[in-house]
């Protein structure tokens, strides 16, 4: 993945979940490469149709609104609101055997046609989670494994 200049968005070198889960890699067909390249620069990129301007997520070859194949990419503000959440307690992967409870949030991006992204909510895994709360992306770098990648996590801004 390209490793050019990084944005000043919030980032962390400390992983929320234990190491050992499958590492995300761009799809071989190239469909989602701009997203993963963007995360390495600490930027949030999503699809936007060149013809009708609709944001789209997850990545697809065709715009699901106007059926254009000219689906481009655009950088969007790395913030959103919590749309839903869950707290897994029971691990279904050996890497998370000693993890304990963790928080998953579904984050809506109101400024990008309300598309939704999945991530972890950083901080105390037993914290109360409020649907509708504003959250900020935190770019979580994984540079110690065989493949470097960056996850997009979320946190409730202090204050």
């Amino acid at each position, binding site marked *: 993945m390209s490793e050019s200049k990084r944005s000043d968005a919030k980032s962390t070198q400390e992983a929320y979940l234990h190491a050992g889960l499958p590492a995300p890699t761009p799809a071989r067909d190239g469909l989602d490469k701009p997203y993963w390249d963007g995360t390495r620069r600490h930027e949030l990129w999503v699809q936007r149709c060149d013809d009708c301007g609709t944001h789209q997520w997850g990545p697809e070859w065709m715009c699901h609104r106007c059926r254009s194949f000219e689906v481009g990419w655009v950088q969007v503000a790395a913030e959103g609101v919590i749309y839903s959440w869950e707290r897994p307690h029971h691990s279904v992967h050996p890497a998370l055997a000693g993890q304990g409870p963790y928080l998953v949030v579904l984050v809506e991006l109101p400024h990008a046609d309300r598309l939704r992204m*999945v991530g972890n909510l950083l901080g105390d895994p037993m914290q109360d989670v409020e649907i509708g709360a504003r959250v900020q992306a935190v770019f979580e770098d994984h540079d110690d494994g065989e493949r470097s990648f960056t996850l997009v996590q979320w946190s409730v801004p202090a204050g």
Partner: protein
Amino acid sequence: MATDELTIRGRVAVVGVGESVYYKRAQSPEPEFKLVLRAILAACADAGIDPSRVDGFCSYSNDRNLPARIANALGSPEIRFSNMQWGSGGGGAAAAIGNASAAVAAGFAQCVVAFRGLAQGQFGRFGAGPRSNTISGQGAFTVPYGVMSPAQTYAMRTTRLMYEHGIDGSTMRAVAMAAYHHAQSNPRAVMYGRPLDEKGYDEARWIVEPFRLYDLCLENDGAAAVIVMSAEAARDLTPNPVYPLAVQQGGGHRSGASVHNQTDYVTSSFKTVVPHLYGQAKVGPEDIDVVQSYENFTGAVVMSLIEHGLCTYENANEVLTFENLISPTGKLPLNTSGGNLAECYMHGLGLQIEAIRQIRGESTSQVPNARVALANAGPMVEVASTAIYGNQEALG
């Protein structure tokens, strides 16, 4: 019935149902294919037909047991129809019976079996996360965040349901307790002899909030089969055929969107299905005597009952109580075999069989004079399905 009407209603009937012994996950002493053969032979025996009469095969969820191999075993002189309902987990359980019905109504075949086999010891679990070192495609946007199992995939829909509509956790507990209650009368049930009370539910561990242990379906080994023939042929075999009044499969706009981006997120995938279903069956929610509602998760059952018009967002907390959900006294008897929670997780085909048994009057928790039964499949998946079954009187 007008001969130009495009419907299965009145044209086809279920002539036989059968299942293998139901086992706990990975406990089957027999391979999956053998379980499938046992289920189909049991359904043929139930129908009173020679197994070689089966000339069509329908299944779903990419079942591994191929029709040609089954037909070889049954001695069928010809295969006239084979059909696979793609993907979508258990969402195809009703659809497979619908596809069998359509094939019979269209004259493609005369005796079509809808079946499903599962031996998770032989082939691995549904509930386990991926074991590869890397992941790409849709999974790359969820798996690295610890969202891997079906429960982890669908819990957030339930959270949002509860948030948007003020649905209480008590509804999910009632669904679980009703299933366990009914399983105590059903010797086939894996949870026969293992009752569940309120305390047992409340004190069970969290799997993924908002789901506790008893909110999740079992994982089991076994097989089940349902045989469909023409209504005319069925009346030669039995004085009381069970008629699929309608079967509809479907999903709403972008129901298959990845990374939780379905246009309508808080749905069990039945909103588009139900108008077609009741329209074709020529019955409404008020006519349903007994309900089999697929439990992958209890929260999905709550959503399904609402979307099928059997209660509303507003009254769900009052209607979905243990007392209302049990047979024979409840107003809305639910999952009367124990269902996926307590009878067996046969990917929902067991729930279809239970609906058929209710219409025959053969359930172990029989609803008196059940005329019309509804059985849905695979809530929240991309393509779900529902069947409505009725007796001769319901057919009119």
